[in-house]
């Protein structure tokens, strides 16, 4: 390995290289607060170990509020983890886990543009942290579902109570999940896709 980091740069493991037939890529954004399990969900369903893309946020872009209490710095780095699922020989799905704070969304230009939709991951211990996210996705016209990550130590609330607490419209799916489990993560993604399927039906056929 040379001393120049770009001469000996890491790349995908051989088994992580996409086949030459891969030609269409789609994305789903997983939105949630710190520690709610975004990366766990991404990692549970991803065929590769989650990767991290970083952006440098300058003071001008940081908005008026503090960023994790990191002040008096010219720039700081914000990370977003993502994973990948090859759905068939041509179609690849990418999953991006992003913080709920809207100011981060602009760091990755077009994060939501062209996204199939979003999964809002919530934690019953901190439901109020999700209000902003729900409103902003609605404003942005991004279709979404809400998944409740049910940690073993979380208080168990019936989904209809959570729906009421979130003031979630009846047509937006709300599902429970244990995002550490691959089958549960897969069910969350399928719940979003079935919602998108319903939305794509012509009105008269619903």
């Amino acid at each position, binding site marked *: 390995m040379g001393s120049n980091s770009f001469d000996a740069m890491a790349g995908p493991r051989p088994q992580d290289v996409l086949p030459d037939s891969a030609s269409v890529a789609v994305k789903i954004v997983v939105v949630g607060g710190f520690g709610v399990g975004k990366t766990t969900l991404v990692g549970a369903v991803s065929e590769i170990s989650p990767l991290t893309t970083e952006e440098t946020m300058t003071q001008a872009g940081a908005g008026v509020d503090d960023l994790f209490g990191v002040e008096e710095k010219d720039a700081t780095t914000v990370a977003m983890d993502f994973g990948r699922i090859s759905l068939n020989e041509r179609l690849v*799905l*990418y999953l991006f886990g992003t913080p709920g704070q809207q100011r981060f969304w602009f760091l990755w230009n077009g994060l939501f543009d062209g996204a*199939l939709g979003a999964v809002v991951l919530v934690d019953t211990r901190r439901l109020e942290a999700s209000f902003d996210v729900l409103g902003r996705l609605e404003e942005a016209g991004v279709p979404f579902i809400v998944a409740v990550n049910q940690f073993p130590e979380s208080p168990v609330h019936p989904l209809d109570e959570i729906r009421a607490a979130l003031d979630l419209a009846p047509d937006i799916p709300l599902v429970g999940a244990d995002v550490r489990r691959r089958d549960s993560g897969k069910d969350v993604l399928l719940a979003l896709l079935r919602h998108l399927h319903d939305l794509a039906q012509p009105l008269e056929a619903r």
Partner: protein
Amino acid sequence: MSDEDHAWHEAGPERLYVITGGRSGEAAKEPLDLVTLVIARSGPPHGMQPEQAAILRLCTAPISVAEIAAYLGLPFSVVSVLLGDLLAEELVVTRSTVPPVADMGLIKEVIRGLEQL
């Protein structure tokens, strides 16, 4: 955001400014998405800027812009600028653009793929 502390020593703003020649990528003709798939048309020419050469080496098979950025430890915005140059020089081609939203055929294809996981 990862719970881990991602130390990042090499990619301070000054170095990134140098890599891109101070450009921000706003002027790119073909906007690159995080999931745009890129593939190289040739290997790196002799004497190429190391970051661009590293991109070409990663693109021997289809790979997303997000993965390129992650493997190189460079911000997406910087990789977009570098890829814009490589596209202009026809050293890479893009294979995937973001499909229109709510295309029923695509949604069904994703559902079938997920169900088979």
